């Protein structure tokens, strides 16, 4: 197995995940808070930025899936890229993401009860935070080498 190939895919996988996290953060962040802005000009500009971010997010996801497909065709590459440390890091990211979601849900429920924030907004915030926290945790754990 070519060492450059493993390193290349390992690096591009994490870079694509960073891209997906940035794309998601901008796209969904704008999507949630766009309705709070009254200025049509700013709203339109933000909508355009959000659209670009969404396309970037989808592109990054598509490239990640393409790496998965390449891995499927090459079992040696797959076992090197999906080694036990990567699996452990992913499990840790899921665990942290789970607790972030739980805290978001509890905070959100209290906010709905005691403020006039709409439940729809809270649900969107939970989705935003949940997806983002999972990706960021995996990136941080992966970069800590």
């Amino acid at each position, binding site marked *: *197995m070519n*060492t450059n190939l*493993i*390193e290349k895919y*390992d690096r591009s996988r994490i870079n694509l995940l960073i891209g997906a996290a940035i794309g998601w953060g901008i796209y969904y962040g704008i999507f949630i808070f766009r309705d709070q802005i009254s200025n049509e000009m700013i709203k339109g500009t933000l909508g355009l930025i959000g659209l670009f971010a969404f396309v970037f997010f989808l592109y990054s996801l598509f490239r990640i899936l393409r790496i998965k497909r390449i891995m499927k065709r090459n079992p*040696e590459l797959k*076992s*090197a*890229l999906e*080694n*036990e*440390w*990567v699996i*452990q890091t992913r499990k840790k990211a899921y665990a942290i993401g789970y607790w972030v979601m739980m805290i978001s849900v509890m905070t959100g429920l209290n906010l709905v009860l005691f403020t006039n924030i709409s439940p729809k907004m809270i649900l969107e915030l939970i989705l935003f935070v949940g997806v983002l926290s999972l990706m960021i945790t995996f990136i941080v754990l*992966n970069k*800590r*080498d």
Partner: protein
Amino acid sequence: MPMELKNKIKVYRAMHNFTQEDLAIKVGVTRKTINTIETGKFVPSTILAIKLARVFDIRVEDLFDL
């Protein structure tokens, strides 16, 4: 208190003139995995520990110690 698993991967790597990448390719993992094992951040499975020991042609106990 949790016990720490010490290893001599860096020493044996230097003896065999292997880079982390060379060793990673021999046992079929990424360079990062070798680095995290070497620095004690990650404890490898028995299978990986045996694979590592086999690369250096030594016993697992010679490579890892409590």
